[in-house]
């Protein structure tokens, strides 16, 4: 770890390690495909995802409806495609919000220590204790329930992990030579935080973000179960699943396809995230001694 953050050599090293991890590469590929599908959904969807048609209720998958229809006669494939936009956005945005808050608070706690650290950690405790869905209930009733409020609340209630991580990184990094050197030279706190410490702490944050996306998607699905999710008629994977809850026996397609979509997305993000983490952490890279020993066996 050097002052100033990762350099070109390190990036190449990262790529070399990452590309050797087959699972992670698969994950990354799938994630890219998913993002493309989500962006191109309006062009790809064969039917209007929100238009009910009561003559076609719960029709099994067929050539005109590859994924069948839902209880209001809407095409499930189109709904899953459009739903990917919402589910993925929920993932990205809420994790982004959580990471931003977590970074700020964790950095403050780790760098300044003392009272600031105490206050932040007590705030973390408070947030961890608070029943999340209750907060969601209150917020979703106060404000007009919408995808933005859901993303914000998931973000607001999910920053604690990142904060802890960042704080821990700071605590370890602060004792390093280059920081003390910078301080003695008179560099301001903000400069130190942003130029030296944060870039090195990026690794766990990136990992946490990648792993947080599937968690956010699952949270949205869980919210739909409780009825607190995105408003109708807009489809999300969570609410298509939820609509299909009562028809598992006669309409397996309602739960299979969105379930598969969630599964594939969660799996891919997790694999990719873990791959990134493995490749970034120098302690995990095969040391030369270890490699020699391994080859010799």
């Amino acid at each position, binding site marked *: 770890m050097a002052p100033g953050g990762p350099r070109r050599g390190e990036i190449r090293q990262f790529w070399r390690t990452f590309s050797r991890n087959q699972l992670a590469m698969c994950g990354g590929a799938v994630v890219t495909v998913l993002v493309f599908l989500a962006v191109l959904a309006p062009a790809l969807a064969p039917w209007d995802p929100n238009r009910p048609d*009561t003559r076609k209720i719960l029709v099994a998958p067929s050539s005109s409806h590859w994924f069948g229809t839902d209880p209001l006669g809407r095409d499930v494939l189109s709904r899953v495609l459009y739903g990917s936009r919402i589910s993925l956005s929920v993932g990205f945005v809420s994790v982004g919000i959580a990471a931003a808050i977590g970074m700020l608070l964790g950095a403050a706690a780790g760098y300044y220590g003392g009272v600031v650290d105490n206050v932040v950690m007590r705030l973390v405790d408070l947030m961890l204790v608070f029943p999340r869905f209750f907060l969601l209930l209150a917020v979703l009733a106060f404000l007009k329930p919408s995808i933005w409020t859901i993303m914000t609340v998931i973000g607001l209630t999910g920053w604690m992990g990142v904060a802890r991580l960042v704080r821990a990184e700071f605590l370890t990094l602060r004792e390093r030579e280059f920081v003390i050197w910078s301080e003695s030279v008179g560099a301001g706190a903000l400069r130190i935080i942003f130029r030296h410490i944060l870039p090195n702490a990026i690794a766990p944050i990136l990992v946490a973000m990648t792993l947080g996306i599937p968690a956010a998607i699952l949270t949205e699905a869980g919210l739909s179960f409780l009825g607190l999710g995105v408003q109708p*008629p807009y489809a999300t994977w969570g609410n298509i699943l939820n609509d299909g809850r009562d028809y598992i026996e006669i309409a397996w397609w309602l739960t299979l396809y969105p379930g598969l979509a969630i599964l594939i997305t969660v799996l891919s993000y997790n694999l990719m995230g873990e791959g990134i983490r493995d490749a970034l952490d120098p302690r995990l890279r095969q040391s030369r001694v270890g490699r020699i020993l391994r080859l010799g066996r």
Partner: protein
Amino acid sequence: MPSRRALRALLAWTAGVGLAAACNGPIESRPDEVVATGPPAYGDTFIQASIGDIGGLIPSLTSDQSSHEVGGLIYDGLVKQDKDLNLVPAMAESWTYSPNCLELTFKLRRDVKWHDDYPFTADDVVFTYETMINPKTPAPFKEGFLLVKEAKALDKYTVRIRYDKPYARAVETWGTTMLPKHLLQSFADAGTLRESPQNSLPVGTGPYRFQEWKPGEKVVLVANPDYYEGRPYLSRIVYRVIPSQATIFLELKANGVDYVNTLTGIQYARQTEYPAFRKAYRKFRYPGDNYTFLGFNLKDPRFADKRVRQAFAHAIDKQELIDGVRLGLAHEANGPMRPGTWAYTEDVKHYEYSPEKAKALLAEAGWKDRDGDGVVEDRDGKPFTLTIRTNQGNDERKKIAEIVQQRLKEIGIQADIQLIEWAAFIKEFIKPRRFELVVLGLGTGSDPDQYVVWHSSQRGPDQMNRTGYANDEVDHLLEAGRASCVQKDRVRAYHRIQEILAEDLPMIFLFNRDSLPVVTSRIRGVSPSPSGILYNFNEWYVPKTQQRYTSG
């Protein structure tokens, strides 16, 4: 490392459990063949599933359906409804009205006893009345009692009730739960009914006695051998609390429950048609006692114009709603009265599905698509946008909102949907009248008097006239209908009210959903009627050879 003693105990436990498993086998049996019928016999247990746990054991204090169902078996009232929805004697032997309809006198049966063997007398009736009107009693349904001027016990088995004005629903009021004076007097006076032992060990006069309540799990009742109409045949009733509709259905299929009070449309039509099910269960279908509606907020200036409301009515295809939401298992509604009852009339204005008529009416009212964007605007160019609101957790209302949204789009109205959690919905939107269009339901009631819903004096935040409807003629008719105890005088008033409501459309009446109960086929004595199948529950029985659970 676990100690050797602990390990041995664990092994013993596992062995014991394993042995028991081998000897016990599965807990429930598989569906039986339907055998020849047998004579009425006492015995067997009746298992019913309930989505919600009961709120308490004194139904006068609760408002949830479960506690009223259970309460209806533990407690009794002076009158009850028979299979044709008429009021017939229960704990009262007979009753008479004075000619001016201001005095109602009940003659009570002499053979009714509380479950603790104390006799039921007129004092209990008066006590119930006094408790219900007592401001310290947290009871939700007081309306009928508040109109009483005086209730007096003339002798041990006669009660005389006086009213200020004739009240059509007087007799019906006394069909509610009667409370035991000898047990609850002190609690009622102190206002601590909820903390009385009655709320955990209820004593009533009903066909079943309370045995136990495991909160969140089950309620168990046993037959009352001293019931004045004779002991009911089914010996035990168990309410199983199962908070998931999907699970209830699975339990039904696996014979874990004997009765479900209503299936969903899709369950009835598509999931219960296979041979094994038809052998093991009987399905019923009869018109229900509630209606679903699309309510306008008449305070909104856009809805003040009747033509706009009528346009909306033409834009909606009610049959599509019935097909989509109930799979056809409902009847179109054109008013708030219950079809098949004496006050109901079909002879009102109908609004057929016609987007052209809808658009024409909107245009007449000044709404045209002036800029070609698909949404109509008024003369100032303001587009017609609104939000359809309903409560969360109700799949039917959600689907209705989605279909209505689509239909409104076709006539140029842009609608959003908002599902709001019930408590917040009532408090933030319904009570302060901060809504535009809502999807809700109301009961049709057993008596056609709907004063509380349509009278202009009932528009306060805690009252039931949610749309804010006010019509002088309807007001007079409601008052007249209420103020008579002779049925044929009231008919005219109610027919006219339905006509006016259909013309004015403070809400669009959508449909009356059918009730779709399912009963296990081993139970005999079930016969459907206009009021449903539960009216003769005490006469249901299981022939001796087919009884599945012995009591005890």
